[in-house]
């Protein structure tokens, strides 16, 4: 269980995270979504006491992180694929972390087996593929057999097999009753994994709700309408209350009307409709709609030469 209350983090005169409040509950995979630079990594580092918050309070299993006895038995984290000295072997790395975390040495072999690295545990990490490093990072996270697991962009750069492995692992960990909190800037990654979603943009909370509800509330399907007179059809549909955006030279994206209504209106106006296709909404669409403002903001900032907050 992670409780974040009014978290703000300022770098210089810019807020990476502003007045963020939400909880992450056990037994679910909670997706933490937002465009690059939205403040996801900052939030995760703050949970671990690595970034010192400008304001706000974070509780992990009811206590501040720094007050936890043997923190690794509460929280395991995968912050990025690095975090390991390339000259050290996987086993030595895990032994060092286990010793620092006051964990029994037998855990090292247990987690190596769980992530499938036993055979290469004696090799220098510098020779590992990205997928193997990621597995080692997850082995490190599992070392303390923690109730909470935080993964920051865990599938970045992985091949499809690696992605599937991580997805299955996250689901399995949640099914064991653990709290799984995983960040991503890609909705599609969360679509099959997350039960609950926390969405942020520009450092602020945008949504905090079950994945299913996000689709229902922010989704709302759309129609692709192909016509030989797009200009006139736009006028007709807009005056009937639809939101219309051109998708191609002769194709319109229509929200707010069903196919029957579009056909009738077009017929009434004498516009020929060549095709009407119905699209169910995806989580991806809902997410893009939600974070639109944040993305625009990022574009403008980019022109002014500001840097993102993601480190």
């Amino acid at each position, binding site marked *: 269980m992670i409780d974040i209350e009014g978290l703000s983090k300022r770098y210089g005169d810019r807020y990476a995270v502003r007045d963020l409040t939400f909880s992450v509950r056990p037994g679910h995979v909670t997706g933490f979504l937002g465009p690059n630079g939205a403040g996801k990594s900052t939030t995760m*580092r703050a949970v671990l006491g*690595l*970034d010192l918050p400008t304001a706000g309070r974070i509780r992990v299993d009811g206590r501040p*992180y720094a007050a936890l006895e043997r923190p690794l038995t509460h929280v395991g984290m995968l912050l990025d694929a690095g*975090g390991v*000295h390339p000259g050290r072997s996987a086993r030595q790395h895990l032994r060092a*972390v286990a*010793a*620092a975390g006051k964990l029994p040495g037998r855990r090292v072999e247990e987690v190596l087996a769980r992530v499938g690295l036993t055979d290469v545990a004696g090799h220098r990490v510098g020779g590992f593929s990205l997928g193997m490093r990621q597995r080692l990072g997850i082995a490190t996270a599992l070392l303390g057999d923690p109730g909470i697991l935080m993964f920051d962009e865990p599938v970045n750069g992985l091949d499809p097999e690696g992605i599937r492995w991580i997805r299955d692992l996250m689901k399995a960990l949640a099914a064991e009753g653990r709290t799984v909190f995983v960040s991503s800037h890609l909705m599609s990654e969360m679509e099959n994994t997350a039960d609950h979603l926390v969405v942020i943009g520009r450092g602020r909370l945008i949504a905090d709700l079950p994945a299913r509800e996000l689709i229902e509330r922010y989704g709302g399907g759309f129609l692709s309408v192909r016509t030989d007179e797009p200009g006139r059809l736009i006028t007709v549909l807009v005056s009937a209350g639809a939101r219309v955006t051109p998708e191609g030279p002769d194709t319109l994206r229509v929200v707010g009307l069903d196919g029957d209504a579009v056909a009738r209106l077009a017929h009434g106006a004498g516009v020929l409709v060549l095709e009407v296709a119905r699209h169910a909404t995806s989580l991806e669409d809902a997410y893009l709609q939600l974070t639109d403002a944040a993305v625009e903001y990022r574009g403008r900032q980019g022109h002014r030469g500001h840097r993102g907050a993601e*480190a």
Partner: protein
Amino acid sequence: MIRSEWIKLWSVRSTWCALYVAAAGTIGLASTYAMVAEPGDVEPTNALQGAVFGQLAFGVLGVLVVSSEYTTGLIRTTFATVPRRRVVIAAKAGLLFAVLVVAGETLSFAAFFTAQILCGRRGAHFSLAAHDMAFSVLGCGFYMAFVGMFGFCVGVVLQRTTAAVATFVGIVFVGMGVIPALLPDGVRAEAVRLTFTKVGEAMATPARTTPRSAADYVLGAGAAWGVCLLYLAVSVAVPLLVVTRRDTN
């Protein structure tokens, strides 16, 4: 915590590398000196001058012990594992210092004995028992260990390996020689005496028999030990102070 740092220290090649380089430098220079010095004109403390290689290697090791953790991102795992960062830094510093003192004194004595044996064969005899010689050898080893701890301090402050190594070399091997020259005449002598290099020289040469030139400003050995301990304390205190005040990105 110490155990964790012990595993980390010995499970990378750079530690062994640094110690080999230090050994080759100190003992190598001692043998060279012993073989080329005029037998009638041997200054035993000169055999300790290979310590300069030891300082460089120890300093780089001191930098790497901490900067490699920052550079690879391991430091985040470390600080998340042990949120009391001062405990982490104290464990690192304590272990490193212990290792450097043992290594520094071992190399310093090894250099001395190498020179003693080689000079003895050529008819120039001197002994550890005579004339502050043991004190010189001890001072030399301890000074090397201190320079390593100064590297550690620079590593914690700057976090990045290249920046920290460059800064360390710049301060210890260049800055300490250049800065006093820029100071006004009145304070120059004092400043020179307090530079690392001269403090180290004072610690390693109480047994020196050849007279120094008047322009060679060196503290007494006792005072030099005091100054060195003070520098050592600062080199440990600064990392302990800065480490809790920063984000660990």
